[in-house]
């Protein structure tokens, strides 16, 4: 009797924080449920948080961090279309990010393009590059696909370092202007925050639509079983190319924003480590789930920032944390926690009903 009471108490203890968590943690059955048009209440929570958090918590450091997280999220969102939905591996997205950044840098500093045009141009360039490289590469699978994309990224770095007349080589390009639309320039972190997350919101809706359309189903089918996909007449190679190009375009957008906000572009920023970081964001957030990238990138960006305090130890700790997270949450923290949550709530509700029934 007493034990039962204790149980109920403990459940209650769990539930309050977990309910709060459920507002920020992506929904587990987003993985499965038919992707419906109408927004859920949870999504409104997210939107509200994105809109008002920076105003409530007006701290430049937080804003700056969220700007970075937003940029990484755009990149990770594109990657999760390719990684989580089409089930292909890419370790080369840092290259597309870099292509975007360099396109913006060159266009704005050399040819005095308005940043808004450069923004679209960089996405176009990245998409074109993805199309050209994807046609031969995407017939590979698994490890070899990963290695091929990685090789592409390395080659991109070498080219950037060597073509000094165009990219400034290792010296890089400086003095990229702020992002500005029609004379309104985003010069404070708050404005940049709204810029980044506005772009992110648009791309998020875009990919949400994409995922529940014909193309999204086709890519999921490719991920599940290519034979089955072929047997219903899906052109597997074409689908792969489409998704790859799409994710590269996202990376281009992200790169352009990055160049504008950091006001510099140099090869060191687009190395293998960055690709790894982005893939980790997608995995940890939970693959095949559009909220995953957001969750994962915010998580990792904050992790990196906190680790900065442990000067020399930051990198080893980072490595250990990565491995542990991968071992214990191979299908993403978000998904895992969400499932636990739903299970627990359901269990609690059942138990309550049972007790009432008894009384």
């Amino acid at each position: 009797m007493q034990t039962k009471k204790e149980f109920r108490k403990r459940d209650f203890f769990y539930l309050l924080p977990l309910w709060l968590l459920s507002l920020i943690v992506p929904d587990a059955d987003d993985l499965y449920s038919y992707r419906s048009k109408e927004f859920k209440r949870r999504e409104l929570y997210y939107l509200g948080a994105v809109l008002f958090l920076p105003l409530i918590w007006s701290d430049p450091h937080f804003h700056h961090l969220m700007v970075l997280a937003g940029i990484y999220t755009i990149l990770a969102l594109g990657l999760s279309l390719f990684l989580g939905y089409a089930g292909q591996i890419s370790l080369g997205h840092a290259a597309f990010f870099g292509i975007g950044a360099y396109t913006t840098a060159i266009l704005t500093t050399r040819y005095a393009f308005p940043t808004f045009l450069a923004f679209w141009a960089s996405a176009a360039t990245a998409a074109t590059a993805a199309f050209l490289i994807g046609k031969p590469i995407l017939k590979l699978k698994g490890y070899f696909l990963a290695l091929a994309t990685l090789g592409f990224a390395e080659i991109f770095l070498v080219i950037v370092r060597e073509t000094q007349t165009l990219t400034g080589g290792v010296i890089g390009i400086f003095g990229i202007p702020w992002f500005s639309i029609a004379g309104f320039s985003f010069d404070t972190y708050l404005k940049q925050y709204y810029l980044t997350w506005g772009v992110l919101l648009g791309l998020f809706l875009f990919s949400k639509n994409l995922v529940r359309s014909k193309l999204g189903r086709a890519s999921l089918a490719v991920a599940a079983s290519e034979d089955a996909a072929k047997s219903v007449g899906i052109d597997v190679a074409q689908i792969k190319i489409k998704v790859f190009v799409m994710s590269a375009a996202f990376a281009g957008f992200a790169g352009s924003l990055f160049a504008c906000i950091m006001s510099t572009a140099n090869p060191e920023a687009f190395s293998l480590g960055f690709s790894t970081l982005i893939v980790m964001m997608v995995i940890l957030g939970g693959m095949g789930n559009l909220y995953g990238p957001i969750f994962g990138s915010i998580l990792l960006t904050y992790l990196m920032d906190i680790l900065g305090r442990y000067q020399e130890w930051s990198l080893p700790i980072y490595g250990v944390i990565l491995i542990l997270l991968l071992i214990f949450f191979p299908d993403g923290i978000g998904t895992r926690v969400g499932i636990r949550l739903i299970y627990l709530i359901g269990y609690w509700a059942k138990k309550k009903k049972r007790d009432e029934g008894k009384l």
Partner: protein
Amino acid sequence: MKENKGMVCWMIFLILIFMGLATSAVAAEKMPYKIGANFEFTGPWAEVTKTLKMATVMEVERINAMGGVDGHPLELIFEDNGFDLGRAAVNMTKFTRDKEILAVVGPFEDNLQATTRAIAEREKITNIIICPSNPMVRALKQRWAFNIAQSDIIVSQKLVDLCLARNYKKVLVFPAVIPLAQSLADYFKRFGEEKGMKVIIAKETHKPTDIDMTPQLIKLKPTIEQEKVDAFYACTAGPPGPIVCKNMRTMGIKTPILGTHAFGFGFIIALGGEAMEGVEFGGAKPVVPDQLDENDPVRPIILDFDKRMRERYGVGIDQLAGYAHDTISLIYDALKRCQGKVTRATFRDALENTNSLKNCHGIYNYSPTDHDGLSKKDMVFIRIEGGKFKRIKFPGYE
């Protein structure tokens, strides 16, 4: 059960009291002046940063032991930016957020410096940068950014002097693909040709990560032989230097080798072994602390600093330790000269008015037009002999 509860209550009460006392005690003494340090504790520069940290910490403790700046202790706050652009920028913002932080030191990597300097300019906080080697970055005329290093201009001028003294008429430059090396090569060519030398910059380059330079050298060897170059300028930094020397000696090229001031580290000799014998370069004074002139104004400072470093860490000073020492003493000096309330603005003005301040690396003079500080007189000619750095002098070139 009950006793325990009572105990707990008492404990909490006592703790609260103690905390109150502690806070009041802290409030009693003067607020510290905070300095942010935005360094690469991980990544390729980790070793360098370790030295910087050791020296800065030691200097700050010494100043605090002397009673700080009229009562205010100095306080260092370290953040790791992991060699990453985004994290460096975020750290910068984190520092600017804390109103008590007067200045930020670092980062060390060229590509990060551009961003942090831009932020410093926007947020109006002093950013002291150690070894800004990227010409594009160093040359940005910014109010709030100060450089602590021999600029590559004076390094190149010094090396040209060395060539003239040695009477090298034709020099082949083998540059690395790092910003420092590139600007060094350019300036060396310009000043050398002003002085009537013939400077050949090879098309062959090498990366900092290359582990074998033989192929490049093989392509350069014909040039060396046909053009009969008098000296070979290994324009690089870090491990590639010794590798180049080793490979050249292995291939039996006997041309004398010139180095950059980045050769002035112990590990370079350790790596190169006997291949490094006879390499000459224009370096900073801390490289040869014991071989300076008696009348050298900075000699006592260097010797004292060297002694303290050896006492505390058991290692002698090198150029980087010198830079760290100079950073802290510059800050100390500026803080002492601050009129009235010490704010970021007043601190910056005081720092900009630094005038003939004696330091490890020489005599610093900052002015609104010059944020570089050092001059050519603060460098010496150095030759590697018997696995040691040996200072060499030439009449007329000092």
